[in-house]
C-alpha cells in the first residue's frame, strides 16, 4: 500500500508526463485541423481522408504491419536527429548518412555471405553504423574546427551521398542481368537469406500475413541504448551539457569540439542504421529510390518526441502510420498522398512554435482588457 505522500508524488510525476506530452499532442491535433482545411479547400472530404488514413494505418493486421515496417526506419532517423538536438546540433543531412548505411549493408551482405547469420547480421549493422558515422565525420570536424554550419554541410553531404550511391549502383555494385549478362538497371544484387532481417511472420508462422520485420525490435533496442547513453554515460552527459549551454560546459572542462564530433558521428551512425534496416529487412537490395525521405521525417519524429529517445518510438509509429495510410487514402478518398507531408510539416511548425497557444491566449486577454 502506498502512503498518501507517495500517491501525491506519483500523481505529480504523471502530471509532468501529461504536460510534456500535451504540446506534442496538441501540435498533432492542430496539424490535422489545418490539414483538414487544406483538404476541404481543395474540394476533398476531410472526414473520408482521415478515416481512410486510419484504415490504411491500423485497419487490419496487414496494414498494421505496414505501419510497423514504415516506422522502423523512422525510429532510427528520429533517434539520430534527437541525439543531435540534445547536443545542440541539427543533423538535417540524416538522409545522406542513411544512404551510406544502406550502401554499406548492400555491399557487406554480399561480401560476408559465407558467414553464419548470427555473425553477419551484427557485423552488418555495426559496420553500416560506422559508415554513417564516417559520413557525418567531415561535417562534424568542420563544425568543430571552423564553425561551418552543420545544417548546410550535412545537407550538401546528403546530395553527395545520393550521387555516390547512384554511381555505385551504375558501376561497381550493379547487379548482373539474367544469365550473366551486364545489368541494365541501377540496382544491387539481392542479398542472400543469411544477411537479411527476417519478417515476424518468418519467425512466427501463426501470425497473420504482414511485412513487419525484426528491424523494429532492433530499433526499439537501440532507442533504449541511446536513452541509457544519454542518461548514464560521460559521452551522453557531455553531449547534453554542450547542447544545454556550451560555454558553461566548456568552463566545466568539457571539450566542445570533441563533443561536437562525437555527437554528430553518433547521430550519423543512428541514421545509417535506418538505411541498413531498410536494405536488410524490406528491400533485400539497394536501389537509389529506397528511402521515402525518412531522414527528413525523422526531424518531425524527433521534435514530436521532444528529443526523448523512448518517446521517439510512439512518434515514429504515428508518422509510420501516416505513411502507411497515405496510399490507402489517395486510393479511397481521392486525396493526394502528399497531404501527409503537409501534416508532417505542420507538426514540426506547431511543435517549434509551442508558444503559439500561450501567445493566442495572451492576445485575447489583451483585447479583453482593451475592450473593458
Amino acid at each position: 500500500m502506498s502512503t498518501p505522500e507517495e500517491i501525491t508524488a506519483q500523481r505529480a510525476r504523471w502530471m509532468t508526463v501529461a504536460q510534456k506530452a500535451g504540446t506534442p499532442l496538441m501540435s498533432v491535433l492542430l496539424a490535422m485541423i489545418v490539414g483538414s482545411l487544406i483538404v476541404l479547400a481543395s474540394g476533398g472530404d476531410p472526414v473520408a481522408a482521415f478515416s481512410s488514413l486510419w484504415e490504411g494505418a491500423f485497419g487490419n493486421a496487414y496494414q498494421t504491419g505496414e505501419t510497423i515496417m514504415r516506422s522502423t526506419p523512422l525510429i532510427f532517423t528520429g533517434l539520430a536527429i534527437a541525439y543531435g538536438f540534445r547536443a545542440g546540433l541539427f543533423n538535417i543531412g540524416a538522409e545522406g548518412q542513411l544512404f551510406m548505411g544502406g550502401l554499406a549493408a548492400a555491399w557487406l551482405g554480399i561480401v560476408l555471405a559465407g558467414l553464419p547469420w548470427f555473425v553477419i547480421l551484427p557485423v552488418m549493422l555495426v559496420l553500416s553504423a560506422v559508415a554513417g558515422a564516417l559520413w557525418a565525420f567531415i561535417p562534424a570536424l568542420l563544425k568543430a574546427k571552423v564553425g561551418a554550419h552543420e545544417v548546410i554541410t550535412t545537407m550538401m553531404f546528403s546530395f553527395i551521398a545520393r550521387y555516390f550511391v547512384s554511381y555505385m549502383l551504375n558501376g561497381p555494385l550493379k547487379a548482373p542481368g539474367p544469365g550473366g549478362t551486364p545489368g541494365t538497371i541501377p540496382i544491387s544484387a539481392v542479398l542472400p537469406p543469411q544477411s537479411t532481417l527476417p519478417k515476424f511472420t518468418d519467425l512466427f508462422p501463426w501470425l497473420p500475413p504482414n511485412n513487419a520485420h525484426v528491424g523494429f525490435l532492433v530499433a526499439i533496442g537501440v532507442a533504449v541504448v541511446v536513452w541509457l547513453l544519454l542518461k548514464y554515460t560521460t559521452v551522453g552527459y557531455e553531449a547534453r551539457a554542450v547542447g544545454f549551454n556550451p560555454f558553461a560546459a566548456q568552463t566545466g572542462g568539457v571539450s566542445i569540439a570533441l563533443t561536437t564530433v562525437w555527437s554528430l558521428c553518433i547521430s550519423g551512425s543512428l541514421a545509417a542504421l535506418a538505411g541498413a534496416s531498410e536494405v536488410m529487412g524490406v528491400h533485400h537490395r539497394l536501389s537509389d529510390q529506397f528511402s521515402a525521405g525518412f531522414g527528413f521525417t525523422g526531424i518531425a519524429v524527433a521534435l514530436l518526441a521532444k528529443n526523448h529517445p523512448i518517446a521517439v518510438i510512439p512518434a515514429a509509429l504515428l508518422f509510420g502510420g501516416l505513411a502507411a495510410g497515405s496510399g490507402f487514402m489517395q486510393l479511397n478518398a481521392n486525396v493526394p498522398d502528399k497531404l501527409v507531408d503537409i501534416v508532417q510539416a505542420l507538426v514540426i511548425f506547431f511543435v517549434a512554435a509551442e508558444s503559439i497557444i500561450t501567445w493566442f491566449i495572451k492576445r485575447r486577454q489583451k483585447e479583453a482588457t482593451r475592450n473593458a
Partner: protein
Amino acid sequence: MPSVGVAEIVSTVVQPDLFAAAIRIATPLALAAIGGTICERSGVVNIALEGLMLISAFFGVAAALACPVVLGITGVAASWIGVLAAILAGVVMASLHAFASITLKSNQVVSGTAINILALGLTGFLIQVFYQRTGTTDSAVLIPPLFAFDPKPSGGLATAWNWFSGVALGHTPLVYITIVIAIAAQWALYRTRWGLRLRALGEHPRAADTVGISVVRGRYMAVLMSGALAGLAGANLTLEQVGSFSENMTAGRGFIALAANIFGRWTPVGSYLAALLFGFAEALEIRLQAFIGVIKIPPQFFLMLPYILTVVVLAGFMGRAVAPAAVGKPYEKE
C-alpha cells in the same frame, strides 16, 4: 572515339555560352542569397530559402497558367503576372517564418525546416489537385530575353562583340534585375539609415531597441523582403528558365544560396559574386559532361561538384567569415 586533347576540350568548353550559363545559373542563387543576407543581417536565420523558392516557383507557374482562364491575359503578360504571384507567395510563406521566429520566438532553424517540408508537400499536393497528375505542371510561356542580337561575322572587333553579346546580352529580364538588386541592396545596407538600422538589429538588438528602433518591425520587414527575393528566384527558375514546375526542382539551391551568403560575407554584392562562382562551377560541370568518354570520370561525380564546392567554401579554405553577432537569437524585450 578519336582521342581528344586537353586543348580541344578547353576550346570547346570555354565559349561565350559558358559564361552566359554561369550568369544564368547564378541568378536564382544570387536572389535567394541576397534575401538571406538581408534576413540574417537583421538577426533572423533563414533556412527556409529553399522552401520559399520552391513554393514561389510553383505559384508563379500556376498563376501564369491560370491567367488566360481567369483574367483573359495570355502570353508573356501572363508570365509577368506569374512573377508577381511568385513574389506574393514568397512573402506569404516568409511571413509564417517571421511570425514563428520573431513573435513566437521559436527555434528559427526548426521553423525554417517546417517551411521547407511544407513547401515540398504543398506543391506536390497542389500539382495533383490542379493538374490531375504527379511530378510536373503544364508549361507556362517563358519570358523571352531582353535583347535580341545577331552574331557578327568573325574577325577583330567582331569577335570581341560576339563575346560580349554572347556573355552579357542574351539574358532574360530578371537576370539584369538581379544585378541591379545586388548593387542597390549593397548601397542601401551601407549608405542609408535603413541599412544602418538593419545591421544594428543583427549585431546588437538591445542597443537598437534602446535608441528607439523597433526590433520586431525591422526584423519582420527583413524576413518579408527575403521572401520577396526568394520569390523572384523561384519565378526566375520556372518562368524564365524551365517553363514548368517539377517536384523539388530547387534541389538544394536554397542551401547553396545560404552558403553563397556566408562566402559573400553577408553582403549583397559579395553574395552575388559567390553565386556567380557556384554558377560557373555548375556551367562548367554541365559542359564537361559532354566529354565523359574522354575524361573517364562517371557523370555522378560531376553532379556532386556544386555540393562539394559549397562544403569547400564553408570549410573556410577561402577565408573565414564572421556572422552577425545576434543571428538566430530571438529578441526578448526587457
